[in-house]
């Protein structure tokens, strides 16, 4: 037993400098720990970090690639944020993303051809949102009517969706598969009308603008609409909400469907902006799971999500970019490891920012007697 009690106390004051400093200190701590692992493996941490930073945040193409990778993360981050802030834990954005990609690419292949591009892309996005929402529907209904924990059901649906997507490309001659290429199975390419336009000669596409627009929309939904109000009340106290006449079940279902639709949109933007086909290997990157951490680090604030997603997009991009850099060979896995370390430290830092650790002397009975008789 320790001779003192460790207590976590909620801080009462929130000066701006601490709010600003916490994330930086968290990232710094993560970089130090990551640097230790790098040093053990025989790399110079400073060189690696310089290369990482340059690859993602200083050159024109670095920045545009970073933003391209940030786009789906913004959407999955929003998907998590809208429900997590109501204590509803849809952790299935990953699967909803796959279904969004399946529905979106189907619409692109069958409907978009011959339409003006703006319509062709819109069709893909709407289909993707519907796909994602449909995938969230069974967990939403089970939650609302049976009280089944959405945590497990959405997680299970993620993997059912993953194998469904794999089946469509690797396991069958479905409408999604390009049957003309004989070698490695791959998805059929959607027509140009169904694709986001890119900015200049970069890979960055209009999906980013759509994602930012949706972030603003979600912020407005929470802030200004009666649905947003209902969601807040249900989130803080379902009993109070029911007493106030708010339809709790309906609000829960709608919130989960919106969340699913956002996950589906992430899949659709990946199809329309990056992969141009249903590409299981290019989609199975944990974008949905990472979105949950993005949302948590952004404290479920839609605008903060844009910045956190960009930061993580940059780290992901650096991993890819480092492979093609001349000079010291930096393994691509560094970025994956750093991403994880930063996430863990940021989660811890968040708590330290809001609370203080207090050590108090443990008073034993003997102490108390000694004190009283002294």
């Amino acid at each position, binding site marked *: 037993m320790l001779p003192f009690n*460790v207590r*976590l106390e909620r801080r009462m004051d929130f000066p701006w400098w601490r709010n600003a400093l916490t994330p930086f200190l968290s990232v710094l701590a993560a970089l130090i720990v990551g640097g230790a*692992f790098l040093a053990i*493996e025989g790399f110079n941490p400073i060189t690696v970090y310089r290369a990482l930073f340059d690859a993602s945040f200083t050159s024109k193409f670095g920045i545009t690639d970073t933003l391209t990778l940030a786009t789906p993360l913004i959407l999955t981050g929003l998907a998590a944020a809208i429900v*997590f802030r109501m204590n509803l*834990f849809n*952790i299935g954005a990953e699967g909803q993303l796959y279904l969004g990609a399946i529905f979106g690419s189907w619409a692109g292949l069958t409907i978009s051809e011959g339409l003006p591009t703006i319509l062709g892309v819109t069709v893909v996005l709407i289909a993707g949102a519907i796909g994602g929402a449909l995938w969230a529907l*069974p967990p939403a209904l*089970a939650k609302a009517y*049976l*009280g*089944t*924990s959405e*945590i*497990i*059901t959405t*997680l*299970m*649906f993620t*993997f*059912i969706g993953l*194998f*469904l997507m*794999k*089946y469509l490309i*690797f*396991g*069958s001659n479905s409408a999604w598969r390009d049957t003309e290429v004989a070698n490695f199975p791959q998805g059929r390419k959607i027509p140009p009308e169904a694709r986001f336009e890119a900015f200049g000669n970069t890979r960055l596409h209009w999906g980013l603008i759509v994602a930012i627009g949706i972030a603003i929309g979600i912020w407005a939904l929470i802030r200004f609409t009666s649905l947003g109000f209902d969601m807040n009340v249900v989130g803080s106290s379902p009993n109070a909400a029911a007493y106030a006449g708010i339809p709790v079940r309906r609000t829960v279902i709608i919130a989960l469907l919106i969340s699913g639709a956002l996950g589906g949109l992430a899949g659709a933007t990946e199809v329309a902006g990056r992969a141009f086909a249903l590409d299981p290997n290019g989609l199975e990157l*944990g974008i949905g*799971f*990472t979105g*949950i*951490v993005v949302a*948590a680090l952004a404290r479920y604030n839609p605008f903060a999500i844009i910045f956190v997603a960009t930061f993580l997009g940059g780290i992901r991009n650096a991993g890819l970019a480092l492979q093609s850099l001349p000079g010291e060979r930096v*393994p691509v*896995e*560094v*970025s*994956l*490891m*750093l*991403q*994880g*370390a930063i*996430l*863990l430290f940021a*989660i*811890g830092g*968040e*708590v*330290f920012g809001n*609370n203080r650790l207090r050590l108090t002397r443990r008073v034993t009975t003997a102490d108390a007697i000694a004190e009283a008789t002294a």
Partner: protein
Amino acid sequence: MNDTAFVLTLAASVAAAVPIALAALGELLSEKAGVLNLGVEGMMLVGAVTAFQIGDATGSLWLALFAGALGGTLFASIHAFLSVTLRANQIVSGLALTIFGTGLSTFIGKSIEGLPLATDFKPTAWGPLADIPLLGPLLFNQDPMFYATVVFALIIAFYLNRTRAGLALRAVGESPGTADTMGVAVGAVRYVHVMLGGTFAGMGGAYLVLGQVPAWSQDGTTAGIGWIALALVVFASWKPLRVLLGAFLFGFARRANFWLQGEGVEIPAEFLAMLPYALTVLVLVVWGTRDLRRRIGAPAALGVPYIRDER
């Protein structure tokens, strides 16, 4: 009859069940203490890569297994610190653990990717017992880790239901406030069981490289077994012995293709891979409704941080 495709498939399913069962038993302990840990996949990967490195360096099977278990335990302590001491959201912390574990294991496993491991667990036949029809190949011709897993499940079942410490553990998962009043150190109990969860996940990961395919590859080694283990805990309704049976069923889903193809039945591999998740949803929806939840055994305080001040 013991060399028919069906019996061989069943025997292979038993072996495939071992890592799933180990990881699920660990997660069960953690969840019984009220802490959901979505980091199973990450802990298994860390266990696997540690076990490979140590096995490669020392040539000792048991040392490698121990290293894998230790790696998983230490890795789980991150989740314990974040979710118990700092009371971070368990879902977020667990997922971050999986992301970090994936990255860390890929990074330290870079140099050993695809290399073979010289030492591995081998099945031992129990003399004439191994020739018993059906039961022989299933139960009496397995490697030591299979028997260890069965023993672990029995010990955990006994611990949960028949010991004082097990009662305290269940109290912490059901009603931490009450447990605290009764003098149970809620935080300590949670720490211990989250870390034990890591021990078992690490062992399960170690077994993957020491028992199944003696090589390390980041996307091939675990292949989602950590997530299946999470499903299994629910499927088995938080009961250790059911974990064993469920693991066998889920293991069968991973190995059934060999037999089915011989029988001329073409079930796409992807559908078999979906099976554990679909069955778990079914179990949840059929038996997991609000009124029946207590009966299936979900700890009431699962996922809820315990804060004494706010009691």
